[in-house]
C-alpha cells in the first residue's frame, strides 16, 4: 500500500479528515460513502475526487501525490470492514454505487 511518508497533501501533514460542512450532523454514513465513491469512480462526479484529481495532474504533467488526500479521507472515516466489502463487490462487479 502507500507508505505514510508518501501521503503528504500540499497543505502539510495529514492529521485526520477535516470537518465537512456537507455533513454537519451526527450521521456520517454518507460522508464515508461519498468520499469512497469519489475515490473509486472519478469521471462525471461533481465533487472533487481522487480519479479526477489524478487525471488532471497527469494531464498537467505533475505528480499525483496530492490526490492521496482523498484516499486518506475515506480511510479515516470508513470502517475497515465496509471498505473491504465494497472493494470485494467492486471486484465481483456487484457494487451498487454509481459507476
Amino acid at each position, binding site marked *: 500500500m502507500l507508505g505514510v511518508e508518501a501521503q503528504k497533501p500540499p497543505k502539510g501533514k495529514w492529521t*485526520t479528515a477535516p470537518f465537512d460542512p456537507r455533513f454537519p450532523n451526527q450521521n456520517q454514513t454518507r460522508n464515508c460513502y461519498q468520499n469512497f465513491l469519489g475515490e473509486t469512480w472519478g469521471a462525471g462526479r461533481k465533487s472533487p475526487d481522487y480519479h479526477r484529481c489524478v487525471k488532471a495532474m497527469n494531464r498537467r504533467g505533475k505528480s499525483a501525490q496530492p490526490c492521496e488526500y482523498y484516499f486518506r479521507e475515506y480511510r479515516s472515516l470508513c470502517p475497515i470492514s465496509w471498505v473491504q466489502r465494497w472493494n470485494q463487490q467492486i471486484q465481483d462487479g456487484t457494487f451498487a454505487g454509481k459507476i
Partner: protein
Amino acid sequence: MACPYQMGFQDATSPIMEELLNFHDHTLMIVFLISSMVLYLISLMLATKLTHTNTMDAQEVETVWTILPAVILILIALPSLRILYMMDEINDPSLTVKALGHQWYWSYEYTDYEELDFDSYMIPTTDLNPGELRLLEVDNRVVLPMEVPIRMLISSEDVLHSWAIPSMGLKADAIPGRLNQMTITSSRPGLFYGQCSEICGSNHSFMPIVIEMVPLEVFEDWTLSVT
C-alpha cells in the same frame, strides 16, 4: 467509574460534562424548592380547621402563579439550550477513532495513518487481578491523547449496541450500516469506564468500554508499540 451506593453523576472529564453537572445542580435545586414549597402548602392546608368555601375570583394570585412558573421554565430552558448548542459546535478533530460493536465485544480502529485495529473483550471475573474492577476491565483499552478533540465514529457489525462513557457525558447508539459521530475532549488523564447501553443479547452486560487518556507523547509511543 461508578462507586458502590453512588447517588449522583460521576466526576466530569470533559468540558461538556462539567456544564451538564452545573445545569443539573441548577435544575434539581429548582425542583427541590418547588417540591418543598408544595409539600409545605399541603401540610398547611391539612393542619387547620379553618375553611373558606366561597372564593369567586382571585385575579392577583392567579396572575402570580401563571407568570412565576413561566419565568422558572425560562430560567431552566436558557441554560439547557446553551448547552445543547455547545454540544453541536464545530470543532477540528485531531484524530478519528472508530468503535464497532459486536456480540459481545467492541473493536476499535485507528486508520488515520497505519491500519491499527484491535478487539476489546471484558476480563472475566475469575481472571481479574487484585484491585481491578469487576465487569468493567478489558484486555485492550482505547488509548487516546488528552486535551485534543477526537472524532469518534460509532457503528455496529451485527445488532444494536450503544457506546457510552458517563464521565464524559457521551453516549451514541451503534447501528449497523450507520456511522454516528461524537467528539471527545478530555480535560485530564486517567481511566474512564462505560458499558454497552443497548440490549444486544445474552452478554450485553459484559462488554464494557475503557478509555485510557494519556499525554500526547505517551499516545504516540503507544501507537508505535502496537503497530
